[in-house]
């Protein structure tokens, strides 16, 4: 223990003893008691209101405490270790962590400090444990003082744009709080430098006490409320990523009025620390749209402050706008980044549900999409026969229960020209590997765009119809080229039945990598590097980052964009937005393509047919010299020997002729 032993040794240095006042007069004791009572009362006057508001909200019908293990781990990792706080913003994150850890260390110090005032101090500054503990606390105090000073400079001098409010001001309370924390630490450390029994000791003690007692009531009045709420919020969070809670009963249509706000949501909106991490990563906020995830959360808080959780006032109105709610691509960056466990997507999708399930949302493109899903069962509104023609042309076998995989075409794979190319390449690979697969004639859209846009009726109809067809066909395993299909089938359909096992083709390809030919970059005509774009629904939603990279690496040089993996920036298509009209501000797809092109790569590797169409359009506007765009299936298929491809399909033709 190389660090600890010097501390032990230092304990016995004569100068390193904390000075504490002794013998408080009765007047002092009474004064202390009165001040504590006043401070506590001021604290409760605000905190009580908030606590009651949270408790008065509707209960979360689907809440359950299990699995406890996951909750404890999240608490340990995100609260105690401050992992999320540090990961994304290492320096300020670490500074914050030191402030937090010092607070923990100070719990005992503070209890002893107050007890001393009443003559019942329990830590002896001269005893072994007291000396040791005070010294450890002093080290933390030092780190804390430096950290808080640093954070103060960052907020008020450096001024990162994400910390500013809507009106570009920085909260002055944060400055006051930082000052108080600094003072707390300084008045504690000061006691090491004053002689025992002197007046200075007594003054320092009172200064520390007064700082503490002024700090307390400020907590519930400012964003520092997160000190108390966020550990609870992290522990109680829904757990699933972008988890959309089931509708509670026949009168539940999503977030329509204050009555629909649940306790968990209320707890979360009061925990927001206004750090702006969500906004910093939001593709909508970064391209000049009205949507700003922090303001969605703070808007809901404003609503609860003004109207309370029993109000029948519409949630979309003064505090949050419908336009903003429908600009979200459901990329999940905000929820992923939030250090206090706020789940934005249940809120944003909840607001959309409220507007769509009641018919409030009127949008030309959105209406068309829903009608297309209602009437044609696919998001593109194309005739079913088009899909069958494609299946016949590509000689895709029908799924009949004997094959290993049901190949899920999805709307893009079944109808979109670019999506069909991906299917074609993936099928080539499966044929090469000898994997048996089949396609279902009666496959419909998974309902992903309806789900994300908040149309529970269409989503339920599609999910149920598909689940029934899959059961009839006795499908056990599905493979899909679309991360949206994968997520919706594996998670969202659970509300209506038990979906079969499903995997994304990147997972399939990576598993069979060893049996697939590798290619030197030159062989496939791929000179230069490939940048892989992580689709939101594959990365953040499914935690699949390595598999697609393994495929890219086998066929060329991989480079990373500045925002990649869990920080990947959306292509703009998610959340049903691919089907809605023109965007406000800059196009998300163009912004992302800009970032990918900046790597200097000559190929953009994609793993989602939606990213693919978005990038195709954005690249088209760049003209000559734009990098080529390939799905990982196309990259893998390009390395298959041409002779194999031809003879394979020849074999198949032979077989078919013989069958006839």
């Amino acid at each position, binding site marked *: 223990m190389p660090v600890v032993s010097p501390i032990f040794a230092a304990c016995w240095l004569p100068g390193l003893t904390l000075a504490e006042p002794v013998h408080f007069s009765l007047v002092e004791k009474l004064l202390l008691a009165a001040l504590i009572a006043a401070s506590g009362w001021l604290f409760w006057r605000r905190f009580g209101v908030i606590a009651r508001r949270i408790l008065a909200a509707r209960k979360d019908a689907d809440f359950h405490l299990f699995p406890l293990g996951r909750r404890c781990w999240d608490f340990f990792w995100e609260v105690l270790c401050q992992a999320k706080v540090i990961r994304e913003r290492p320096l300020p994150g670490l500074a914050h962590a030191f402030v937090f850890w010092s607070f923990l260390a100070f719990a005992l110090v503070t209890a002893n400090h107050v007890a001393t005032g009443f003559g019942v101090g329990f830590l002896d500054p001269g005893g072994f444990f007291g000396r040791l503990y005070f010294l450890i606390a002093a080290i933390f105090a030092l780190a804390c003082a430096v950290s808080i000073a640093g954070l103060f400079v960052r907020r008020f001098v450096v001024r990162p744009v994400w910390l500013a409010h809507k009106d570009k001001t920085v909260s002055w309370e944060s400055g006051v709080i930082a000052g108080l924390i600094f003072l707390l630490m300084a008045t504690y450390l000061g006691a090491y430098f004053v002689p025992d029994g002197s007046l200075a000791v007594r003054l320092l003690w009172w200064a520390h006490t007064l700082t503490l007692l002024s700090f307390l009531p400020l907590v519930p009045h400012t964003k520092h409320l997160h000190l108390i709420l966020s550990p609870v919020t992290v522990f109680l969070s829904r757990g699933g990523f972008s988890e959309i809670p089931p509708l509670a009963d026949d009168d539940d249509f999503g977030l329509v009025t204050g009555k629909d706000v649940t306790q968990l949501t209320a707890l979360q909106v009061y925990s927001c620390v206004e750090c702006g991490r969500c906004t910093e990563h939001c593709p909508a906020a970064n391209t000049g749209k009205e949507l700003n995830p922090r303001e969605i959360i703070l808007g809901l808080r404003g609503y609860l402050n003004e109207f309370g959780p029993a109000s029948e006032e519409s949630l979309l109105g003064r505090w949050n706008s419908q336009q903003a709610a429908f600009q979200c691509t459901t990329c999940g960056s905000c929820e992923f980044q939030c250090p206090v466990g706020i789940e934005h997507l249940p809120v944003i999708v909840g607001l959309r549900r409220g507007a769509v399930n009641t018919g409030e949302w009127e949008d030309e493109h959105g209406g068309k999409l829903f009608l297309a899903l209602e009437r044609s069962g696919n998001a593109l509104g194309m005739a*079913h026969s088009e899909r069958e023609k494609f299946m016949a042309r590509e000689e895709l076998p029908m799924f009949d229960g004997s094959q290993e995989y049901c190949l899920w075409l999805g709307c893009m794979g079944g109808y979109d020209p670019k999506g069909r190319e991906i299917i074609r390449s993936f099928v080539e690979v499966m044929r090469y590997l000898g994997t048996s697969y089949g396609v279902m004639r009666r496959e419909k859209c998974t309902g992903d765009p309806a789900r994300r846009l908040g149309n529970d009726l269409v989503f339920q109809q599609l999910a149920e119809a598909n689940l029934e067809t899959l059961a009839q066909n006795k499908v056990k395993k599905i493979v899909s080229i679309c991360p949206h299909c994968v997520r919706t089938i594996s998670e969202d359909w659970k509300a209506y039945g038990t979906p079969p096992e499903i995997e994304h083709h990147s997972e399939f390809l990576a598993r069979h990598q060893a049996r697939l030919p590798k290619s030197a970059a030159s062989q496939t005509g791929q000179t230069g590097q490939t940048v892989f774009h992580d689709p939101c629904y594959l990365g953040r939603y499914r935690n699949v980052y390595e598999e697609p990279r393994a495929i890219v690496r086998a066929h060329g040089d991989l480079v990373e964009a500045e925002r990649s993996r869990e920080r990947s920036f959306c292509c703009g298509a998610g959340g049903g937005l691919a089907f809605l009209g023109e965007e406000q501000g800059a196009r998300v797809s163009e912004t992302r393509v800009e970032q990918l092109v900046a790597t200097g790569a000559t190929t953009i590797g994609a793993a989602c047919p939606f990213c693919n169409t978005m990038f195709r359009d954005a690249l088209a506007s760049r003209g000559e010299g734009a990098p080529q765009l390939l799905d990982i299936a196309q990259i893998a298929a390009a390395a298959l020997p041409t002779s194999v491809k031809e003879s394979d399909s020849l074999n198949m033709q032979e077989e078919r002729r013989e069958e006839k």
Partner: protein
Amino acid sequence: MKIIVAIKQVPERDARIRIDSAGKWIALDEIEFRMNESDAYALEEALLLKEAHGGEVVVLSAGPERVGQTIREALAKGADRGIHIASDKLGEYDALGVARLMAAAIADEQADLILTGLQSDDLGLGQTGVILAELLGIPHSSLILKIEKTEAGIRVLRELEDGWFQHIEMTTPALLTIQSGNTRLRYATLMGIKKARSKELRVVEADAISVDAARCVSLDSVALPSRQKTTQMLTGTPAEAAAALVEKLQQEVRVL
């Protein structure tokens, strides 16, 4: 304003059509059904009129039990109540017979306006609505794109051939058959479906209505359109062949 909308349930657009064993109609098992498209527009017009001027929208449909689902869908989109003429052998009636059933079923309704789609997506006769107006003795107008309420009755926009339109002033009660595509259809909502559950749906047994069921039109047989691939050689000088090709692309294939 009290508006009755007559809607028909038809096989979905892309259904895989097979002819049934008797050869007189298509096989209906394995087929999904939808609301007839122009009827959906008729319903939308009725709902818009109700939203603007108040009143009641009643949907009327005939057919077997499954038709109830289409009526529910109309109720979910905002219609107030439904009338279902229940019959498992509606195919035995011709357009006149169906119109007679409908006339009888709504005899007591005293509607101001009756809307239907222009024609059905399956048979495409365009007759039932017009005959119904005759049976009820009220004026009618077909191919309607727009309806406005006026002091005296209604003013409608009617589509003619070749991009021509006609405005007609009519008194009510009247019957209009509605052309597709002029308004934006609303989507069905969860709230609508839930509300529809408690709306009135009156079932009238077709057998209990005494109408003259004698057919004046009968359907002998149906057949799938045959598709043949033929090859034509265009002969002559290159210039002639090119001219002939352009002509064919324009007139026969209609791609130019």
